[in-house]
């Protein structure tokens, strides 16, 4: 199999036999983000086993999620789904008293065609707690797309903007010319329609991005999701929205089509280049000219120097499992790395358009060929390609990490990028901290001379 080099951006598609996390794993970070929520995963033992093992110790910390484990009677429709869910939800209400219960539909509920969307409003009315339904199943989605389905469902519950109240106030002020202190406050920001950012980020990272925009005099009027369900932002006609993560295409679509919002298509604020491009796309929408952004980016690059020296000229291979791949690859190319392949579970060319364009520009700027983008990759083929290319770093799932390490290929678990803080200027260093960790470790152990630790006759043997 020869490795092709492309002049333009192309997306190939393989068999889709690849390893990734089940999208229900999104409950692990979403229940922490949305403090007053409870996630109920309606599925089988397989789902439960995955959650219990993937989330490790979290499971012991009285998490705000649980399985509604389907038994044989539920599958064969001998039991009443509605009554079953009602019983569990009443218990959850009693034990935890959440502000919202989110049902996560799984493969099984799809196959037996359990009408979760139909039951939710009825039960919601009966027990008095909002119930959202997100079909985060492995039949349709991969890993982080789980969050996408939840946020898309949540978007429907965002209140209509009380824009008119504001406007009326202003009008009254103008008419009667009362000078209030409020006016001074308004002056701090550009006089503009509201901006809502979507994507679940840790509290600190979200406030860093808020601050970043504040420096450009742009006020972020809300986040989807907010820290609490009860604080969901208002959405509606004339509200601008912008995504912070590359896997939120359904949410974006919902916001545009159902909530009539205006989407700002921008690269994602990952890496200093991405963050700058992200801000630069937002500012003109509000008629703001960016200030000091270039210097700021420059300063960040300056501060990364020690890490950049370490990664420059090194090659990297993304096997693909969390949809952050294009943004990360773009950042790493800008850092001077060579990217062989960008595996990705699903590529929404429209939602990621600005990001893809930035990737292309970055490649041209850095004088490197555009890497191949492989949608729905085939792990078995990819391992063959890794064998041929011998990259300095493979960014891969945990199923392949140890076997590749044993064959002398340094790896970084892709899952860590999902849980680490990687957005904004201040966190660029954290991304490189992750990327360089295997390289630094390798440097420390270099003198031991035992890079491959598998038996010679093994057919996946790669280097000496």
């Amino acid at each position, binding site marked *: 199999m020869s490795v092709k080099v492309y002049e333009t951006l192309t997306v190939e598609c393989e068999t*889709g*036999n690849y*390893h*990734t*996390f*089940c*999208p*229900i794993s999104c409950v692990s970070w979403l229940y922490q983000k949305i403090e007053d929520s409870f996630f109920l995963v309606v599925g*089988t*033992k*397989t789902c*439960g*086993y*995955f959650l*219990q093992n*993937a989330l*490790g*110790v979290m*499971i*012991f910390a009285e998490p705000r999620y*649980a399985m*509604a*484990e389907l*038994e044989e009677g539920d599958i064969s429709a001998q*039991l009443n*789904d509605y009554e*079953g*869910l009602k019983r*569990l939800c009443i*218990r*959850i209400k009693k034990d935890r008293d959440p502000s919202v219960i989110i049902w996560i539909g799984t*493969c*099984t509920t*799809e*196959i*037996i065609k359990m009408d979760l969307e139909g039951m939710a409003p009825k039960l919601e009315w009966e027990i008095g707690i909002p119930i959202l339904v997100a079909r985060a199943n*492995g*039949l*349709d*989605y*991969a*890993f982080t797309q789980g969050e996408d389905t939840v946020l898309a469902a949540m978007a429907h519950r965002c209140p209509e903007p009380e824009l008119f109240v504001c406007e009326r106030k202003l009008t009254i002020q103008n008419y009667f010319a009362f000078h209030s202190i409020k006016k001074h406050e308004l002056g701090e920001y550009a006089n503009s329609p509201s901006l809502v950012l979507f994507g679940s980020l840790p509290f*600190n990272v979200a*406030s*860093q991005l808020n*601050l970043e925009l504040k420096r450009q005099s742009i006020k972020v009027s809300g986040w989807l999701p907010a820290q609490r369900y009860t604080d969901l932002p208002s959405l509606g006609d004339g509200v601008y929205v912008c995504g912070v993560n590359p896997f939120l295409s359904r949410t974006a679509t919902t916001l545009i089509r159902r909530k009539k919002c205006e989407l700002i298509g921008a690269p994602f604020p990952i890496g200093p280049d991405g963050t700058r491009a992200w801000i630069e796309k937002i500012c003109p929408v509000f008629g703001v000219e960016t200030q000091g952004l270039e210097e700021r980016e420059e300063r960040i690059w300056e*501060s990364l120097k020690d890490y950049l020296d370490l990664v420059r000229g090194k090659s990297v291979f993304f096997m693909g499992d969390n949809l952050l791949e294009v943004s990360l690859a773009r950042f790493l190319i800008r850092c001077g790395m060579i990217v062989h392949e960008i595996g990705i579970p699903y590529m929404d060319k429209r939602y990621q358009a600005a990001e893809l364009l930035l990737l292309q520009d970055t490649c041209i700027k850095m004088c490197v060929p555009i890497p191949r983008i492989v949608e729905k990759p085939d*792990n*078995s083929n990819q391992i063959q390609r890794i064998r041929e290319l011998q990259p300095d770093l493979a960014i891969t*799932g*945990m199923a*392949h*990490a*140890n*076997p590749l390490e*044993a064959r002398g290929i340094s790896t970084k678990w892709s899952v860590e990028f999902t849980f680490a803080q990687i957005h904004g200027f*201040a966190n660029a*260093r954290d991304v490189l901290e992750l990327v360089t960790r295997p390289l630094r470790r390798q440097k420390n152990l270099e003198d031991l001379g035992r890079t491959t630790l*598998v038996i010679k006759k*093994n057919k996946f043997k790669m280097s000496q």
Partner: protein
Amino acid sequence: MKLAYWMYAGPAHIGTLRVASSFKNVHAIMHAPLGDDYFNVMRSMLERERDFTAASASIVDRHVLAHGSQERVVDNILRKDKEERPDLIILTPTCTSSILQEDLQNFVYRASIISDSNVIFADVDHYQVNEIQAADRTLEQVVRYYLDRLDRCYRQEKLDQFLTNAPSVNIIGIFTLGFHNQHDCRELRRLLRDLDIGINQIIPEGGSVEDLKNLPKAWFNLIPYREVGLMTAMYLNKEYGMPYISTAPMGAVDMAEWIRQIQKNVNTLTLSSSIKRVDYEHYIDGQTRFVSQAAWFSRSIDCQNLTGKETVIFGDATHAASITKILAREMGIRVSCSGTYCKHDAEWFKEQIQGFCDEILITDDHAEVGDMIAKMEPSAIFGTQMERHIGKRLDIPCGVISAPVHIQNFPLGYRPFLGYEGTNQIADLVYNSFALGMEDHLLDIFGGHDTKEVITKSLSTDTGLIWNPESRLELSKIPRFVREKVKINTEKLARQKGIETITVEVMYTAKEAFNS
């Protein structure tokens, strides 16, 4: 429908995959949606496996839902056949895909005609059996497949039914992701060498399916853990008249019993041959008194302190029963309650621990176990990872004695639970759990070594800087272990720049400044 946070035994396909990936050169294919191949992660992470796990998925997606798998499963089987040339391919559905009721048996049949590998369909019902039962069944199915086929095709010719000349055994049930299985296996090997008994085969771990035809050559079978292997042993007993020993050689008393059973079996079969009868009594005596420290340990005054201390034990049937017996009869510790999540084996379990504990608990609901522990307030718990966490919450020490396990239960050092070395390991585990508990208790009484909270890290608290309410809130959101550092850095920067009031902005400027 039931509310569940945690389960002791996994879904059926995990059991099948564990058996398949334990054998050499066997590939498992799951008929499963994306993300159900989590088994590969577990094997790679927990066992720190160096090789790619020989399990892959034939993905069920929306398309399959609409049109059926059609050629896809067969193609995936044939592709694996070409790529990896396995001896055997096992196809298994998962909970989800088994509802689709596709005729997987038919796919297997079609694939087996074309492929060079043997192909079988794991015959387990995903809604009836759990991981452990499925592993037991799959192992039996594989063994039966190779032996029955042999019988049919080459009866009398190829199947060498003669026993080995010297006494030999098969060890059945050592496999991947098993609780300390690798160490136990090494310990069993050592024991059998001491007893001058050859090992014919160890299955499934590291075994080859092509060799399964030689299983009947052994004189008898050893089943160290009754959860997996018993079905195979019963099958071999029925078809080939092979005796088996299902006692777990755990603890000094059961060890002696186990060796005596071996002796009996060897002697029965030597009657007809020229080999002389064996007598292991001397060996048992020597090992129990001097190799194993456990017998001496329970006499020593250390162990005296444990007399009458109360414990709760919970785990799989084999480990929970053995540990209960060890604690009660070998160490004189009171077992307030002993239980297992192996509901299917409840009768055997009850019979085993009769008279060794006050109460018996058979359940697979961790909340029930937690409530029971809270009610009993034992001095120590011996259980699974779940009980360890229950113990943490209740401030009761816990020794882990059974799966489900976490990565720390796959130690690199030698830690068998079986055999004479196993008795030492168990004694350590038990003693350390209690000793820690005792120390903790004493510390509590005398106020501890150290005051728990350090009032302030810096010598002077008067910095003259003001944190505004937002920044204070922001600071409180930062994880505790780095909060102090962030605070110091921010104040340092503020002083450098002559800022008096610290805002959120100052905090993040400081973060950037000190990051580099």
